[in-house]
């Protein structure tokens, strides 16, 4: 059971809403954080917590694209492919990643480190092409930069090139 050891976190979440069901999306995020994806047992557990049926949870989770219903690689690379990023070369980013990791969209690398997805607009249109890896944004990508980020992730588990609090254009130094 995922939530047994997270009673405080769940309590805190539930206290934010007058209606329990509102905590559904946040609880699904916790399930995904704990297991890497949203499993069926987790959905059943959430249903119990919120007095819902498992099918109500399933109905909701399948509407949203950020929940993975199957296990994926340690790092989920999501490349924005919408028009604004496409104008500045997002299709190249997919190519660069393919060259480097030998995976195409929808695939996971053989070492289970990376899963590649192409997704629709991530709200970073002025700093495209861009990708999101797990929670972090990486923007104004070049082939060199992408290679560097993937190497760092593999070797150190994090990359120094992730975006901080957003401001673009940046202030002149």
């Amino acid at each position, binding site marked *: 059971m995922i939530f047994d050891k997270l009673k405080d976190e769940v309590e805190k979440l539930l206290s934010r809403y007058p209606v329990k069901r509102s905590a559904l999306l946040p609880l699904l*995020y916790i399930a995904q954080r704990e297991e890497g994806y949203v499993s069926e047992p987790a959905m059943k557990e959430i249903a119990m917590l919120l007095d819902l049926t498992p099918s109500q949870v399933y109905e909701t989770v399948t509407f949203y694209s950020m*929940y993975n219903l199957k296990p994926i690689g340690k790092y989920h690379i999501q490349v924005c492919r*919408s028009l604004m990023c496409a104008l500045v070369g997002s299709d190249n980013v997919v190519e660069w990643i393919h060259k480097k990791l030998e995976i195409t969209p929808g695939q996971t690398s053989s070492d289970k480190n990376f899963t590649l997805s192409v997704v629709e607009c991530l709200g*970073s249109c002025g700093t495209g092409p861009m990708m999101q890896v797990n929670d*972090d944004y990486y923007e104004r990508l070049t082939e060199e930069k992408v290679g560097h980020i993937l190497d760092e992730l593999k070797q150190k588990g994090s990359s120094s090139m992730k975006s901080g609090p957003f401001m*673009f*254009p940046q202030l002149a130094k």
Partner: protein
Amino acid sequence: MAKYEKILFKNMEQPGYVGSLKEYEHLGGYQALRTVFAGMAPADIIETVKQSGLRGRGGAGFPTGVKWSFIPKDHPGPKYLCCNADESEPGTFKDRQLMERDPHQVLEGMAITCYTIGAETAYIYIRGEFWLGAQILERAIEDAKQAGYLGSDVLGSGKTINIYVHRGAGAYICGEETALLESLEGKRGKPRFKPPFPATHGLYQKPTVVNNVETLANIPHIMNRGAEWFAAIGEPPKGSGTRIFCLSGHVKRPGNYEVPMGVTFREMIYEVGGGMRSNTPLKAFIPGGASAPFLTPEHLDVKMDFESVAKAGSMLGSGGITVMEEGTNMVWAALRLMEFFYHESCGKCTPCREGSSWLVQTMQRIWRREGRTSDLDLLLDLCKSIEGRTVCAFGEAEVSPIVSTMRHWRSEYEELIREAEASRPNSKQEIPVLSQA
């Protein structure tokens, strides 16, 4: 362009400013909240916001004060404020900057709004991908609570205002206000039929105001400096105040720029944005996010206010300006947006659900040089059957790339179809097999 004063970016453009509570207070932050809590009547605040001419910055441009005035004053029981931070309109990335660089400006605007409409609870519905923004807001809320600006006894008044961050999970449609409410209730984010409007039947069927991040960030400044000051900025009465425009595409200096309403697209793209990326002439631009119809170089001198852009056949929408240079294929551009809308259709209304899939398949076969002459009429016919026949404005939005590119660049569609016809041995019997999008 004449010199002007920035309002929303003023703090964050101070060297070294990171948006902490201390810095925000040091630059006059939370003064407006103090003024309001010193005993301003909610009716007076609504009147001030009405007089200021502030219109919603999310896309529809509805007058903010008027929206607030729809909340029933004597309603027993809870009312809610929701800050729409879903920022899902392609081409738009301003709210991210407002939240991550100066979160207290947004929180102060929210607290004043809560006081005005009588809400004790407010939610910031932020798009799921903005994980960093959500962390920054959570931290800022905690700091504001410690300082007495939020919590159960705001500024010693005994009044309660709690703000919570609620992350979405990757659905464009949740930027539509009633879909946002559904999603916040833990359901699939499908828009509700209106009326009733959120002002009377919103979150949990209670009176609710939904305002965009940028709209709320303007509130403290209007309270501090008065309605007349704000109403005189920009292009009153068509558009008061400044607006943050997001430049993207083939422009030299993309990014967020705060300018007074009413500058022209030419000034925005060529002066502020530095002109075209590789000095190739401009071919097309989208003036207000993916939902806004494409415009052409002849519209460059249109003023960027709600009404002028509407008159030019498009909309100011969310303020996302996407610029395309000569050489960009307009069928391809429309297809990319169509694929977005197909992916994001929530599936509630048949014309949109079925129509988006049909449109995307037709566009894809034209782009693959497998189209037929009749496809052009088919596309327009489909668009007509979607527009105005859906619960929310998504229907109008999804047809706009096709309708507008067909209006201005029909020859590019025809060219692709000519190529298809030429490569087809016997065009009468050949019906291309459709692939799933």
